[in-house]
């Protein structure tokens, strides 16, 4: 559900939204009461949305514009030509791996019906798991390590925690039947997590004032906030630890 940042809205805007949402006495309620009433209503709507995203009790999906003001999406969306339905998956056995950041990747996959049928014919019951393979950047073909993640047969995507920086990862989808037989269905292309020189040379950075100034003077704001980045934070935390020690 799309909800507006109601705290940021003016009284006029809040009344407008409240009226649209069918809140009684929208015109006479003050700002605090309107905020409370809207918040309550959104919470109730949120609780009516089940785990799979479907709505378990009827309410009108609101459309909030960049202006933060709502209008009934059906007024416009419904009349726009050619709203397209996309398939939930494609008829292929395939897995992809998208790198979100140095610590997480997103895998998504599909298994074609022929493969499912074959699996059903060969075993009364089977399940899927993902195998995350870790390779050295210099030797991509050589698997250095791996770990498995159990997924259900209805899952089609998974966020994967990547344990090490500067490594190459791939993920494969496997089946496992009740007799303990396993097999690989598909494997993704590889992704490489970045590594920073300074993570491995933090002592040198701590001792080199010139280098430190040169690097960090363009990364920290006037108010002392550093550019937001987890790897950079790791460098700084290590540096703090070493200097503190």
């Amino acid at each position, binding site marked *: 559900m799309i*909800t507006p940042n109601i705290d*940021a809205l003016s009284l006029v805007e809040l009344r407008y939204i409240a009226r649209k949402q069918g809140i009684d006495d929208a015109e006479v309620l003050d700002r605090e009461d309107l905020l409370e009433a809207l918040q309550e209503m959104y919470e109730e709507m949120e609780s009516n949305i089940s785990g799979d995203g479907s709505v378990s009790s009827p309410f009108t999906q609101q459309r*909030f514009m960049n202006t933060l003001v709502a209008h009934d999406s059906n*007024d416009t969306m419904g009349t726009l030509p050619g709203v397209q339905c996309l398939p939930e998956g494609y008829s292929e056995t395939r897995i*992809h791996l998208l790198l979100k*950041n140095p610590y997480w990747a997103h895998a998504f996959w599909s298994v074609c019906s022929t493969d499912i049928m074959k699996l059903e014919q060969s075993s009364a019951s089977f399940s899927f798991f993902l195998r995350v393979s870790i390779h050295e950047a210099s030797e991509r073909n050589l698997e250095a390590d791996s770990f498995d993640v159990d997924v259900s047969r209805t899952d089609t995507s998974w966020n994967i925690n990547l344990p090490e920086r500067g490594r190459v990862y791939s993920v494969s989808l496997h089946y496992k039947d009740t007799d303990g037989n396993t097999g690989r269905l598909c494997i993704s292309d590889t992704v490489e997590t*970045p590594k920073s020189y300074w993570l491995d040379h933090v002592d040198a950075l701590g001792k080199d004032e010139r280098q430190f100034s040169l690097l960090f003077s*363009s990364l920290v704001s006037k108010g002392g906030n550093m550019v937001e980045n987890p790897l950079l934070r790791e460098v700084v935390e290590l540096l703090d630890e070493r200097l503190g020690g």
Partner: protein
Amino acid sequence: MARNSIGLILNAHMPYVRHPEYPRFLEEDWLFEAIGETYLPLLRMLRRLRDEGVPFRITMSFSPTLCSMLSDPILQGRFTDYLRLHQELGEREMARCQREEQECLPLAKMYLNSINTNLQEYFETYQCNILTGFRDLEESGHVDLITTAATHAYLPLYSEYPSAINAQIELAVQSHINHFKRRPKGFWLPECGYFPGLEDYLQKEELAFFQLAAQSLILADQPVERGNYAPVACPNGVFGFARDFHLTNLVWSNAEGYPTDSNYREFYRDIGYDLPLDYIRQYIHAPEVRVFTGFKYYAITGKGNDKRFYHPERAARKVQEHAANFLYSVHQKGEKVAPLLDREPFYTLAFDAELFGHWWFEGIDWLEAVLRNAAKSNDVVFETQLDYLKRYPESQVLQPSLSSWGEGGYSDVWTDGVNVWIYRHLHKAIERMEELAIRFPDQSSLKQRFLNQAAREVLLAMASDWPFIIHNGTSSSYAEKRLRDHLGNFNVVYENMCKNAVNTEWLVKSEKRDIVFPDIDYNMFNLNSRRNRYNG
């Protein structure tokens, strides 16, 4: 005293939004607000400086989708209608303020004057195509114009698909040449999204440089020698300029930046929301969708709902203070940094152009004051990335790190829980487009047009704007619908071509709807054919 060079890059970009099927379309206002509040006032300011002989050099990137919309007669006509509607509102506002809210009268007059000037310049100076104004500034040597990905796709998420990245870049260069009659020398990485190896695609198109997120060099796997104060040469010789977060943040920060000053104009208070519906109805969207009208009478004041009226004179004083403070900060930084370097420091400032004028109302005045004061100073100069590369052709060879300017510095914004589902379909569409380009190479006539439309749809679906808008939760229904439409339209071609058929009626309608990239060649999705092109 060391000279401090500032390399300012402004990225002008709007997603392709064009709905002639409706008399007025809400999301088209994004473009109209940007033209009226940023592009025209920016042109006015830059030309004024040039005419007065104030020296400056800056870089501007224009996205191909924006160029297409700015030179589209239908949208030009609709922008004119938009200005006239707001001109009428301005006249009504003058009368209303005279009658009911006299404190706002000078402001209503200020907005009306600005609309009148925009109208006059739009017609008389630019004959409705403002790109000519920027081209003129390039010809006079004040602005270097560069390009960006064809539909502003966030490229790191397509690194698996060389054909798609190649198409985004090749088409961008082609579109730039069509609009500006010159080959671009630089490339704006959408959202500063970089992955190692991206420079190879840029090199193929003879692009000499690109900008990077602030953390890209410090996080590289070798030590960077000059911090962010000089570009680096990627192993293939294309140069990367990393942003200076410290100086950028003085301007672009919702916590510390100049635009947060309480005297500046409040963006979110607008008569489109504040005045009774009966009065404002004809200036907002049907049936009763309140939108910004541009008539905003309040200053930021503070966090609460109670706002003071806006005083342009107070804001103007702040503009001068902030411009002086900015140059002082550059000077101070130079004092600290220059002794650590073996050459003069270069600070890369990269912003979305729409920050100035649209989001930060006084931003263009601030930029003007900075450029004027810098011209008078003896230690700050605005020069472009190409100027710098002429002065210092040698740079440290270093591979920048994977990075973006999005939250967290990587791809999280474009792959969060609400938008990551799109890549299943986008990647499939790219694979199918590659398949079509290989199965049906060098087609002519209807099939060629049909396949070109498919390529257009895939590229439009790849725009970074859709996942970004979905991530933000603003106008997300529209963004999602656009994605679904483009992917659905692509599937129409794919399914028809699999049956060796062309849906002519659909094709004619689609070509009329999406006039972007008239010279597109779907063969760009066949990398073998492209390799032959480069090798031949």
